[in-house]
């Protein structure tokens, strides 16, 4: 340690003050129901931190540019927090309970495994929520693939589902390239059971119409 031309601050006395502040905030914590008490507790914490930083970390005696380093870092965090308030903190506050419920239900339905019962009635058909999760983006809910522009139109083109199970499973597993474009391979994402279930779902929903 060097360049210390100042006397040491009274470390032990400061320690007592810190302990007292802690005791104070514990007492206030009993009444921490109200928002004001929360703010006060936080202010006490900030004061304690200030004491540690100024005296224990000797920031009081450091040149201004070193103080600026700490101030700069805290300012960056403040910018982050206040910049995110409109979007993250108030984001949910502006949604009604019903809207939130819809969002959460959709999210849960997408994430649930086939047949765990938490999805909607339609999805309890085996293969249905695999289809909803992975296939619907291209093949669409009506199986028409945007009139065959995005994916095979199972309805308008019966030759698609006329193929054998093995051929269709191969397409699901390894993907396939055709005139429309490319179907990605799902072999590493879907288990064999899921592949069989989604195939039977597709056949039952869109085949033979």
């Amino acid at each position: 340690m060097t360049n210390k031309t100042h006397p040491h601050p009274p470390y032990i006395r400061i320690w007592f003050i810190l302990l007292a502040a802690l005791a104070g905030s514990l007492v206030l914590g009993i009444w921490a129901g109200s928002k004001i008490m929360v703010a006060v507790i936080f202010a006490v914490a900030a004061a304690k931190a200030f004491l540690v930083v100024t005296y224990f970390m000797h920031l009081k005696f450091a040149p201004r540019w070193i103080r600026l380093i700490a101030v700069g870092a805290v300012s960056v965090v403040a910018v982050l927090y206040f910049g995110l308030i409109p979007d993250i903190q108030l984001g949910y506050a502006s949604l009604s309970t019903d809207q939130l419920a819809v969002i959460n239900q959709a999210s849960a339905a997408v994430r649930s495994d086939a047949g765990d019962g938490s999805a909607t009635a339609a999805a309890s058909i085996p293969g249905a929520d695999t289809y909803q999760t992975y296939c619907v983006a291209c093949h669409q809910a009506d199986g028409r693939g945007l009139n065959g522009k995005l994916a095979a139109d199972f309805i308008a083109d019966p030759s698609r589902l006329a193929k054998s199970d093995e051929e269709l499973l191969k397409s699901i597993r390894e993907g396939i390239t055709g005139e429309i474009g490319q179907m990605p391979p799902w072999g590493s994402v879907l288990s064999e059971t899921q592949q069989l279930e989604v195939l039977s779902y597709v056949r039952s929903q869109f085949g033979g119409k």
Partner: protein
Amino acid sequence: MTSHSQPQSVWSRYIFSVDHKVIAIQYIALGLIMSVIGSYMSYVIRMKLAWPADPVVGFGDLAASQYNMLVTMHGTIMVFWVAMPILVAGFGNYLIPLMVGTDDMAFPTLNMLSVWTFILSTVVLLISLFVPGGAAAAGWTSYPPLAADPRFSGVDLGITLWILAVALEFVAFLMGGVNFITTSINRRAPGMSMWDLPLFVWEEIMASIIFMLSVGPLVAGAVMLLLDHNFGTGFYDTAQGGDPLLFQHLFWFFGHPEVYVLLLPALGILAEVITSCSRKALFGYKMVVWSTIIAGLLSFIVWAHHQFISGIDPRLAFPFSLTTILISVPFAVTIFAFIATLWGGSIRMTPAMAAAVLMLATFLLGGCTGIILGSAAADIYMHDTMFVVAHFHYTMVPIVIFAPMAGFYHYFPKMFGKPLDGPLAWLHLVGTGIFFNLCFLAIFPLGFMGHQRRISDPTQFGYIDGGESLQILATIGAIGALVSQIPLAINIVKSLLSDRKADSNPWKSTTLDWQTPSPPPHGNFATTPTVYRGPYFYSPPGIEADYLPQNLPQVDAPSDQVQASVSEPKTIPA
């Protein structure tokens, strides 16, 4: 003069070296190797975009999921494993101690730990290419829920390894940043005030500060993503009370300052090359420094311009558009200062200077296209189209490729003690310049036409017609640009194997890094230099000499005019 004795064994000289020059070359070499991998990925991407229905020559059939992986890893590798090591750590490590006149970084052992942490991060990333499920495929931005749920991206272990690799890379650069800032501030040679620093050192200081302060929240956010991905926590899951948009904010809160972390050292390299090759002091040196500081501050409040159409609060669009347009001003100051330095200068068109001019011209164009994207209203159409891709390549390639090329042609003689071949350099630069512009100029109109990024066949949706010929043109440009790098590779090998020796100061530069042998010995300077003047005393008026090095004590034939323009020997700061 040195704080540690010359290392002896192969291990301590080349592998676990604590010498900043060796560490710098380790960073640059690794960056160049990764650039080959990243460039190969860009080749495959461009081939797929030009001929979506055909298998790619030199790769094979490319499925859409693999395309996702390629664009993800191309972006990740180029930003974190090419740009950062070459620009920030490579040139920074090499030049900072030399430019401030000291023997090494303030913490040489920490420096060695930094580069080895970086090497570890590289290994982790490369391993992710070979694990089941493949490497990360959620974009270099890795947004949840795509990145958080393995069932959405089809990639499980790959994304975990990606997050770990990026986290390790961040740790390496946090350690490095401490070294760069401390050395630049605290190890300056006697007589060197902060205003006597070459601009490159200022830029590295500020880049390090920006990096160290902006990366923190993303470190927290990446840990949260890792937990969501591997343990199903709900930090970014609405059903559990989380919010996917939070990750976007955390990512771009770092992601935007990060581009300035890369830009600033590039501008620094340019300043050194342009002043030396124009025989002229940097125009408005202090103004440039202050502008850069202001730009650094502003860089923390523009981030949401990457999220205009993500579903952020629409009231945020205006303030972020405003700050985004504002930030172009301080950078314009720097660019204009460089142009003003060139104006009326005695230009030596070395390959380094040509690369610098190429960087300026293309970066200017790229920056202007950024103004379009920075306006929220225009961005509603342009976001996620190829226009964005063309914009960031028109800024990033000058920053990451052209500026280091300028640095390389300028500093290779210093680093290796051998000159580079001129004609090969010109072949390399002309080819790169022409083909790069061909490639990305063709991509702007694709963006206007609505071609979307991160999609291997944008025409599959049917509502976009045409653009195929532009895609092919862009691919020709890309391949041409890649092929144009061959002369550079040949040049490097040829020069390293040759017996020709380079001067210690072939460009007759003023800064301290040129006032030592090429390559500098262990300890850099025989005795600690003393600094008598600022960094860019070129063509000083009233003096015979063409330039005055910073450590030259006196000047011949002093006169009244001379005393006014040459500063007094500085007293050691109290």
